[in-house]
């Protein structure tokens, strides 16, 4: 196979020609948008067309989006969503997404020579002071993205919600994980009539809640048990 550079403009044309779009049908309150990979937010306004690489953030506000597939999507306060998260996801794509996660987790059996003199992986510059995250901003963003994922569920985009929650769990890991996100994933699988996967997710919830000692976790475990009993053939 031969490697040649993609001409960026041609690439962008091709990419944009198959990309989805969404139009802001209604904006109320403090709603912002961010274009592509830009660092800054702009104020949103009705009628603006958003590309799939853009992001929308509702602070104290609400936005209604008309998607190019004819669907209408509502995003509530303190929610953030990438427009690309609204793209239609088929069951096959959902399945492939989970398979790719499993493949990523497999140990690397590529035929690298055991004798290779590789560099030791050292992350320079990390020290105790610099490791402390910016908690406030991080938690705020995590909450906003989480609300965005919840909005996907509320608007019936269950497959999209599942993938979004997966990404949120990876991007914003919580210790200990008491199965909150996993239970949402389980519910989404139930809505998709994927009983097998739903049962797996509820069982994972049971495993995760074992590590937690709080009323919410206990309630979640009970709910998981009930759903498993209900779904079991």
């Amino acid at each position, binding site marked *: 196979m031969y490697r040649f550079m993609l001409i960026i403009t041609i690439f962008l044309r091709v*990419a944009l020609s198959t990309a989805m779009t969404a139009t802001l049908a209604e904006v109320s309150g403090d709603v912002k948008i961010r274009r592509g990979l830009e660092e800054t937010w702009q104020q949103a306004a009705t009628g603006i067309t958003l590309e799939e690489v853009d992001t929308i953030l509702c602070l104290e506000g609400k936005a209604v989006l008309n998607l190019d597939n004819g669907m209408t999507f509502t995003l509530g306060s303190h929610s953030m969503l990438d427009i690309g998260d609204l*793209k239609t996801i088929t069951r096959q794509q959902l399945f*492939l997404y989970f398979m790719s996660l499993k493949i990523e987790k497999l140990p690397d059996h*590529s035929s690298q020579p055991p004798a290779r003199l590789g560099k030791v992986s050292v992350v320079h510059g990390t020290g105790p002071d*610099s490791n402390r*995250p910016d908690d406030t901003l991080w938690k705020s963003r995590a909450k906003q993205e989480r609300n965005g994922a919840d909005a996907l569920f509320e608007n019936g985009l269950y497959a999209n919600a599942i993938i979004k929650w997966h990404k949120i769990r990876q991007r914003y890991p919580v210790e200990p994980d008491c199965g909150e996100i996993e239970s949402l994933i389980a519910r989404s699988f139930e809505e998709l009539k994927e009983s097998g996967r739903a049962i797996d997710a509820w069982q994972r919830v049971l495993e995760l809640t074992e590590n937690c000692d709080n009323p919410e976790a206990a309630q979640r475990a009970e709910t998981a048990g009930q759903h498993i009993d209900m779904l079991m053939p």
Partner: protein
Amino acid sequence: MRSVRKINLLMAMILLLFLSTYGIAGGRTRSSGVGVRLNYWNQFEQPTRIEASTTGESHIAVNGIGGAFYFFSRLYNDWFFEFSAGGVSNVDVISTDAFSEEAQVDAVVPLLLGLRYDFFSSRWSATVNPYLSAGGGAYLWSSNFVQQTGTAEQQLRIETEFKTGYYLGAGLNLALSSRVALNFDVRRHFSETRFNDNSDGFAFAVGVAYMWGKQREFFRIKDIKWIVQDIYPAYYQFYNSYPLALVTIENRIGQAIEVNVVCDITQFSERPRETGYLRIPGGQTKDIPVTAYWNRSLQQVNNRETAIVDLQIHARTGEEVLKQSSTEIVIHSRNAWNGDVDKLGFFLTPEDQTIRQLSRQVDITPDSTAVATFERAKALFGLLQQHNIRYLPDPNIPFYQDDRVQYAVETLDLGHGDCDDLVVLYASLLESVGIHTAFVDVEDPQQELAHLYLMFNTGLTPQQGAKISANSKRYVVRESIPGRPTIWIPVETTLIGESFEVAWQQGAMAFLRQAVLRHGLAERWVRIVDSH
């Protein structure tokens, strides 16, 4: 006491004889042989008798004694064809006085063709080879009576009869050496004659045979699978441990053998490489991986050429046998690459002196230690800009030829390279200062040609992402170590003439659109391959 000692001594000598022939014969019969047997087949069930008296009367009867000549030849494996011709007679002579005598001589001459199966010879290591046999043929029976009474009267009667019959037999061949064997045989003959109602019967024989021809091989090369026939010099470290071939050896005898495979590649071997003697139990088959010691000539190949791989297979079990096999392999040029992104990491040279010196020219003062890796990577990209490294695509290469990848130093010397070359250069620089890299391999189904770019690990946790960008779409969160997600930065290395910011932006956008939005990662046409 003395007789007991003599018996013990005799038994000890016989045992010694058995043991001494153990290794010599090796339990493998030669393909052909001839022998003679002394037979005993008492058809009339009469005893052997010798009587004499002072009155001149005598009675001599010798029954069932005979001999045979036989020839055998291997048909297939442990099956032999055997031909035998012999004779067994019963002689009864009665003399009543000096002038009166009568003699009765009955004989049978069997001419037989048969099959023999040595059923232990390929599985049993001993020199004793039992067998079963069966066959049939012609039995020439004759009955001869001569009587002389006094000086005048004589009576002669000769009768013959030709009959067919068959036999079933068993026996032992005791190999004294690879060419000589003692034979003990017993047969039940089935052939009737009017001369004797009890002509069927058992015949016992003892004999000796001389053998010639090929001994069955104690091992054979069942298969040689050549695993690698195209050698890419860039992957030489891989070939030092990865087998070139698998030699399958079958042990065809009942005892263990030892096999040593020696591999030598003309011009390219430092020295022949031996597997060492490996034990193969009796009757079993073993796959033996073969590797080579490569020398520096491999790194100096500039144009594709061929080389001969010679394999010598030494097998031993008492004796040693050598077999050989050769094949031709293709040695590609040192810059050749078969397009396998998993192997592109072999082209990285972070330990190269020039690369190390170059990478250490970068002096950064990051805003915080957390982003030092990111800042250093940025600075190294800028360093390549300062060296006026430019993107230049490779010339059109026919599909049947390899792609060509420049090592980092070569790209620095030339001042240009295509996307693979620039990825290798930037990755080598990053790796030389301990920054982990990964290749992003894109085989977009909507595009005719594949593409390659790079991402590097900042070491930052997802929570620290804001330190480098407020927009999380500009980086990729990856768990290169399970349970430890970190932030990776995609960089479009062909934009080496632009700023790091531009290259980063394009790399991030490409990843976002292809890997994420178009599900390239899930559908496996976008792959992230760690460089090591």
